């Protein structure tokens, strides 16, 4: 008599499903990604180098790195504070705070950008006040940073909240009962407990910060060599039918994303033991 578990499909069905999944991934994910690299390098390495070192490209790369370097640390600080407040303390309005943290996930990035135009643009609420003082936000770097902060807002907090909920409060209470201050408890107990989750959140936030198009596009103004990030620069090149250069910069952006993905996998692989060994 066969002893198949009731959940087990026949072998043929199983391989069919796995095959379909892989085919789907190849078609939807790998093929386009491969095309990017193929197109980028079709004209040879020299052409590629020229496209990514040309002055507008360099300024776009610098701007992208700068924006990520500002937005990511700010979101780490906020994400930590929010996750800590939500998981280690009881207060009213907790569900409200949770909903608000998710807001950037549910709002279209274009709308996120428009919010800042409405607030700080020339016709916006604070537009004339800012103009009088000579402060530029929209069509300038500060606007791009703000829009990026907005769209990457939930990543760190969302990564930490389930992790910290699962860990509970007893480690923190143990530290407090041993005489630790709130800050010491956070630094010596909470932070080491969440460090891999935190790093993971940082990687995700960073990937999004460097790749964001919609929100940044609305506030940037597309000033070449000044307010174009890498995704925006790629679009400009593409619209000019400069495909070789567009794909070259795109391949660089894709490499950044792949590096993030590899780092994430290494992290998960290296610390799977530590994660499994935490026996409580």
């Amino acid at each position, binding site marked *: 008599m066969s002893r198949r578990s009731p959940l087990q499909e026949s072998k043929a069905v199983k391989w069919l499903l796995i095959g379909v999944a892989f085919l789907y991934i190849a078609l939807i994910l790998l093929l386009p990604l491969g095309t990017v690299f193929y197109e980028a390098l079709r004209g040879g390495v020299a052409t590629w180098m020229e496209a990514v070192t040309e002055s507008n490209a360099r300024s776009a790369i610098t701007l992208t790195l700068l924006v990520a370097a500002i937005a990511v640390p700010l979101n780490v600080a906020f994400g930590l504070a929010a996750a800590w407040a939500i998981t280690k303390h009881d207060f009213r309005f907790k569900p409200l705070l949770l909903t608000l943290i998710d807001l950037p996930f549910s709002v279209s990035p274009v709308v996120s950008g428009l919010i800042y135009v409405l607030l700080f643009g020339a016709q916006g609420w604070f537009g004339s006040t800012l103009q009088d003082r000579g402060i530029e936000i929209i069509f300038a770097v500060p606007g791009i940073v703000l829009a990026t902060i907005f769209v990457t807002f939930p990543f760190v907090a969302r990564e930490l909240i389930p992790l910290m909920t699962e860990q509970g409060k*007893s*480690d923190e*209470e*143990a*530290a*407090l*009962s*041993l*005489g*630790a*201050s709130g800050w*010491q408890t956070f630094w*010596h*107990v909470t932070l*080491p*407990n969440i460090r891999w989750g935190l790093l993971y959140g940082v990687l995700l936030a960073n990937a999004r910060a460097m790749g964001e198009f919609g929100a940044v596009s609305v506030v940037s103004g597309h000033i070449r060599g000044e307010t174009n990030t890498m995704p925006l620069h790629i679009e400009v090149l593409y619209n000019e039918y400069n495909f070789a250069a567009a794909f070259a910069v795109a391949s660089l952006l894709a490499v950044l994303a792949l590096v993030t993905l590899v780092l994430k996998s290494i992290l998960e692989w290296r610390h799977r033991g530590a994660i499994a*060994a*935490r*026996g*409580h």
Partner: protein
Amino acid sequence: MSIRVEEVSKRFSTYPALAGVSLEIVDGEFVALLGPSGSGKTTLLRIIAGLDFPDSGVIRFGDRDVTDDPAAKRGIGFVFQHYALFGHMSVARNIAFGLDILPRRARPARAEIEARVDELLKLVQLEGYGERYPAQLSGGQRQRVALARALARNPRFLLLDEPFGALDTKVRRELRDALRIIHDEIGLTSIFVTHDHEEAFALADRVAILNAGRIEQFAAPAEILERPASPFVTSFVA
């Protein structure tokens, strides 16, 4: 030092977890809080520790009103049911934690801290385990580390919440005996929570029996067995 609990009440949402509990524990005494699950034992212990705060009532250590003092200021040692050891620290660093975090001027020298760690490892019969990590220990060993850690700063009281609850019978008995010996050695006023009346009677000088947020009887084991104060006590210890 003595502990006085005066008319302490605590509600979670609408349901009262403690409904006017009073208790006086004398210096050096070993007391068990005994009662069925949900009777308020943990809540009472946490309020004494300063990990929770009562809605009304007073907690005194000696003559001092400590009701509003946070846990860090109360000079207590607390042992959690699931150990709550710091997984990223070695056994030695776990035990030394309370000393390592002292401000520089109050902190003993490095060598003194290490000597204290060795002394405590010996007390809980874990000599040579200092470099291990909690994940490499059995449940009983982890609970011993938790006990050593709680004792490191010479607390005025030792509070234990179902310290043997997650352990199997044999380890339980060993650890129970070890705890009684340690208590008698250092004469520390101690309170432990349990839902097992045999454990409470075997270990404690006096047992407080809780039911639905109230104390039904607080007396020595022999007295409780001879003169149970209520039908609940009679049936619970039967």
